[in-house]
């Protein structure tokens, strides 16, 4: 882990990895979208609207996974004062917020024809909305200080406090009897959905993860550049 604490070494590895993750993202997203939109059967009850799921479910997973990544990075930064973990957590936050918004919007678009309403105050929807608020709080806090290091550390503590929401989202559909359907892919007794639907869903999920890695590397790179510019300006101002 501490091998990557050196920004120069990190940048060298990141630049080597970036074309691969970028290319794979484009490839898998293309294959996944083809399978999901054209080459998978419509649901016998929901018809063609089931295709919303291929975007909705992976973005919901990513909303939670990115938060977990952010929290782990924050913990690493707080415990070992790892300089790149701070930056990674900050860089991940807007991506996670974006995935969460996509999840909520596609969920609303799917809910209107299926449930007859854009929004219900059900446990999973509410806890996902809270997740979005936590992202927004994190982004607000990390940018609220004149000294960026204070922002990193304060926001890191907030990210760790917010982790309590993740199990609530995951298990809300099991704990409360809700309109949202219970888990059907990640279960102890194996997935309960048909392979024809599962395969495109998994391809899309992997594509979303690669997309996250690609954008994360780009954002970390620009954060490092911004920090360099800030330091140069400070040293110029001091003369």
């Amino acid at each position, binding site marked *: 882990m501490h091998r990557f604490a050196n920004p120069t070494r990190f940048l060298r590895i990141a630049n080597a990895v970036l074309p691969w993750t970028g290319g794979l993202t484009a490839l898998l997203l293309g294959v996944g979208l083809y399978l999901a939109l054209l080459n998978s059967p419509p649901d016998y009850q929901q018809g063609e609207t089931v295709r919303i799921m291929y975007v909705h479910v992976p973005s919901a997973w990513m909303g939670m996974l990115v938060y977990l990544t952010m929290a782990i990075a924050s913990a690493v930064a*707080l415990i070992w004062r790892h300089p790149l973990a701070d930056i990674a957590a900050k860089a991940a936050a807007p991506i996670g917020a974006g995935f969460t918004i996509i999840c909520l919007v596609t969920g609303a678009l799917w809910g209107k024809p299926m449930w007859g309403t854009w929004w219900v105050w059900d446990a999973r929807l*509410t806890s996902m909305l*809270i997740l979005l*608020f*936590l992202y*927004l*709080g994190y982004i*607000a*806090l990390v940018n*609220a*200080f*004149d000294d960026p290091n*204070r922002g990193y*550390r*304060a*926001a890191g*503590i*907030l990210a*760790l*406090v*917010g982790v*309590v929401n993740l199990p*609530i989202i995951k298990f809300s559909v099991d704990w409360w009897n809700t309109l949202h359907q219970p888990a059907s892919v990640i279960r102890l007794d194996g997935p309960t959905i048909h392979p024809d639907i599962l395969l495109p869903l998994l391809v899309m999920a992997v594509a979303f993860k690669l997309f996250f890695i690609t954008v994360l590397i780009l954002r970390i790179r620009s954060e490092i550049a911004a920090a360099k510019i800030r330091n140069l300006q400070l040293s110029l101002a001091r003369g």
Partner: protein
Amino acid sequence: MIAAFRHMLMRDLRLALRQGMDATMAVAFFIIAGTLFPLGVGPELNTLARIAAGVIWVTALLAVLLSLDRLFQQDFEDGSLEQLVLSPTPLEILVLAKIAAHWIITGVLLIAASPLLAIFLNLPAEVYPVLLLAMGLGTPSLSLIGAIGAALSLGARRGGVLMAVLVLPLYIPVLIFGVGAANAVAIGQSPRPHLLLLGAILAAALPLAPWAAAAALRQATE
């Protein structure tokens, strides 16, 4: 350590009492904001009875939020916070004492004032005991969780608004179960599960919140 806790608690209570009006400000806000709802929604008694518990909880939440800046801001500005961080007593204990003082000043007063608001809002009589019990279990959690937000936003630009953004999402569970307990009684069900969950939140927040708040204070005074 117990002596340090007691001294810290007494100091904060004494400071709050000597400042007089400041402490009652949150309760004044609670009552005034609560009376806006009958004016806004309309004085129809059945509607008011249905929303009463929710209104009381939401205004209590906001009143606690407004009072949170008193928790650490003054000590941060006059430098006594740095002394607390440097003291040999674990900072978590001192933070817990400050939170306890904050709860006694705002939480207890809010609980005492809530029957008044309940009368304004035509809350059914059988809901009163559960509302008070739920507030007794819920308001300490509000002070505890709020302390994390108050500590994190020390020294930030636009600290007040920032604190609301940080703390309100974390308050949502307390709100849900607090209102849930009152509504369960209103429709003739047992409020027990909601009260147990409020107790669980308090039991989790009691050790964890002072810990997180102390970590935030350490990095604020670095």
